[in-house]
């Protein structure tokens, strides 16, 4: 898994810190510190550009804190946060698409390539092209499984889809990416 390896309290402890007025701020700090990178990369893989990912990440944390009172603990805190991040990202993509009908297509990919933070490794660029060519749902499932290394059940909680449908979706996504890599690498 691509993440830093610092030790954080578990989610339940963080929630207990947040619940008490005296430790609320410390709880928020732990929450942000623990999840900022994971959520950033999850969002970045969806919205692609750093500045957009930065905005969506901040909005996600604000929404998480605002909604914490309504968190029922029926799912784990991290899948709940991923679900919020996913919804924020999808809403962002939708609004961006409606503003610029040609965003997220090949022209958009060229703009990403020109950006300062783009990695020039060619094989990985082909992988990026292949992932970006996937339908939105397959792309989301692939990213959560391949990069975030999540069990199918957690992905099912985040995407509110059945495990069977997710497995099929992931399988198709991997096959499509492989086909693209075969043709380009």
């Amino acid at each position, binding site marked *: 898994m691509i993440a830093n390896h610092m030790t954080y309290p578990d989610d339940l402890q963080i929630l207990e810190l947040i619940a008490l007025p005296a430790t609320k701020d410390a709880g928020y700090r732990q929450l942000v510190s623990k999840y900022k990178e994971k959520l*950033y990369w999850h969002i970045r893989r969806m919205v692609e550009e750093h500045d957009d990912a930065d905005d969506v990440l901040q909005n996600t944390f604000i929404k998480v804190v605002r909604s914490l009172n309504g968190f029922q603990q029926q799912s784990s805190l991290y899948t709940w946060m991923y679900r919020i991040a996913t919804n924020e990202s999808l809403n962002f993509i939708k609004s961006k698409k409606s503003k610029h009908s040609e965003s997220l297509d090949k022209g958009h990919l060229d703009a990403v390539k020109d950006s300062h933070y783009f990695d020039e490794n060619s094989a990985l660029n082909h992988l*990026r092209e292949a992932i970006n060519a996937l339908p939105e749902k397959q792309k989301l499932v692939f990213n959560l499984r391949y990069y975030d290394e999540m*069990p199918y059940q957690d992905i099912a909680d985040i995407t509110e889809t059945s495990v069977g449908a997710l497995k099929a979706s992931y399988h198709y996504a991997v096959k499509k990416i492989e086909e693209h890599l075969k043709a380009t690498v």
Partner: protein
Amino acid sequence: MTQYNDIMDEIVEIAPILASLPKSNLDQVPEHYFDQVEDEILSQLSLLKDDNQRQLALPADYFSKIDEVIMERIVDQVQGAKIIEMPSRKINYLKYAAILMFFVACLGVLRYATPEKNMDVASQLTQSEVLDYMADNAEDFDINMLIDQGMIDESTLDGISYISIDEETEYILDSDF
């Protein structure tokens, strides 16, 4: 078996090229981004918390005093209330009915008092009927006026008895006017 091994086994089986690629983030972030973004998010959360506290702040003993304040206001409202007698709806209905009747009556009068209507009635009378009516009801002043206006021929008045001006004057003087 770990989750990572599960995932890699799946991929090796169906996508060997993908499995051979290093799994790393395709993009980079600005230097120290994650430290800065943490501070940024926490400062926004702090503003959020201040807003919530400001919105939810209550004066001391608010709930122990609020019922008294509400009761006092209710009593003030009830005592200070001015009773205004509203007009009866029944009277309003009668008023509208009277106005309606008046308009209907006016329309009726206008309909039957038009000159055309009178002319129609007059045209149905014979000359002798007109003269008989005039003999019974007209005074010489009226007849003179009709003659002056050319509405009747003076020769047709032969044989009609009508009171003279002198007789009329005498009648008026004798009456209670």
